[in-house]
């Protein structure tokens, strides 16, 4: 008893079955709507990750993305990068930085988990070990803070 048997019966004169087809059609449309809304919501969250987390997603999250979603993320990244390069003169403008207005060039940070060695601009490296505190340039730390590796301490 499938939709095709109802359809052929309806065509052959059982007009009272037409609404049955309509009912099934409503259900199909409903399922389609739920699926589309779910997939679209996932895309909205994936897009937000680019802004809140960074351009490289952690494995735990990528593991749960479909191949098409990974592809979408990469294309979105590229689109954004192209746009950012085109504004703000020669070097472009990183819109994902300084989301909150910066108050100082250097900030105090505490390390929340072991991360390893971290190189800063003048060539020196810092060892980011859990609970160690450092005074570092803001633009280098911003991404690590957003990723939960460092914590920004206000004085």
């Amino acid at each position: 008893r499938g939709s095709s048997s109802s359809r052929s019966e309806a065509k052959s004169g059982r007009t009272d079955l037409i609404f049955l087809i309509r009912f099934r059609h409503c259900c199909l449309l409903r399922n389609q709507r739920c699926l589309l809304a779910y997939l679209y919501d996932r895309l909205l969250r994936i897009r937000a990750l680019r802004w809140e987390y960074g351009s490289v997603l952690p494995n735990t999250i990528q593991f749960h993305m479909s191949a098409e979603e990974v592809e979408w993320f990469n294309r979105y990244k590229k689109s954004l990068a192209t746009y950012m390069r085109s504004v703000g003169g020669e070097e472009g403008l990183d819109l994902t930085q300084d989301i909150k207005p910066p108050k100082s060039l250097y900030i105090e940070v505490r390390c929340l988990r072991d991360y390893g060695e971290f190189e800063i601009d003048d060539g020196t490296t810092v060892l980011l070990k859990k609970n160690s505190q450092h005074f570092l340039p803001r633009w280098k730390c911003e991404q690590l803070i957003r990723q939960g590796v460092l914590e920004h301490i206000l004085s």
Partner: protein
Amino acid sequence: MFEAYFPVGPGLGLEENFLSLDDILMSQEKLPGRAESALPRLAFALGQGAGTGDSIPEGSKLEIPLWLAKGLHDSKRRIISVELPKIYKEAWRTVFSADANVVDLHKMGPYYYGFGSQLLNFDNPENPEIAQTILQTFISRFRRIMDSSQNAYNEDTSALVARLDELERALFQAGQKGLNDFQCWEKGQASQITASSLVQNYGKRKFTDMDG
């Protein structure tokens, strides 16, 4: 504080937003109806028969979700006709006009405003009164919601939101967010870089279903 995730919100008025998860949940709510002709083979699907071939006799009362009602309904009422749920009828409308603030809108079907707006899609002679009641109810309750959302800082707000419907809860949350953002700014924390809330949430869930 910084959020880049903007979900699709519910529609306003007669149109739902197709991609809105809120509207999908709202349109799952049921309304009472009546079968206008015998409906063969549908008994099982509508929860009224044991055998898959059973039909629903003409005239039987049904409870169907809004999305199905919208799909099967037509102005000639050939398949089903829909009735108003009781809270949108005359008796309850008088209660709302007397004092809308005491009503527990969450219990009355948590999507009072959204669902009520969707009911206007069915041509019912009481539609103008229903629309008026929904609007007036919102107007009388809004002030209290706005005030309480702007004054409850760092408190347990569950008592305040318990009797609000979903639209009102969203408004309350918006007010709370504004209050919290302002307090954060006043304390000088507005420039503090914070970890992404998405990451904090994903970190908490252990993904235990990876093995199963």
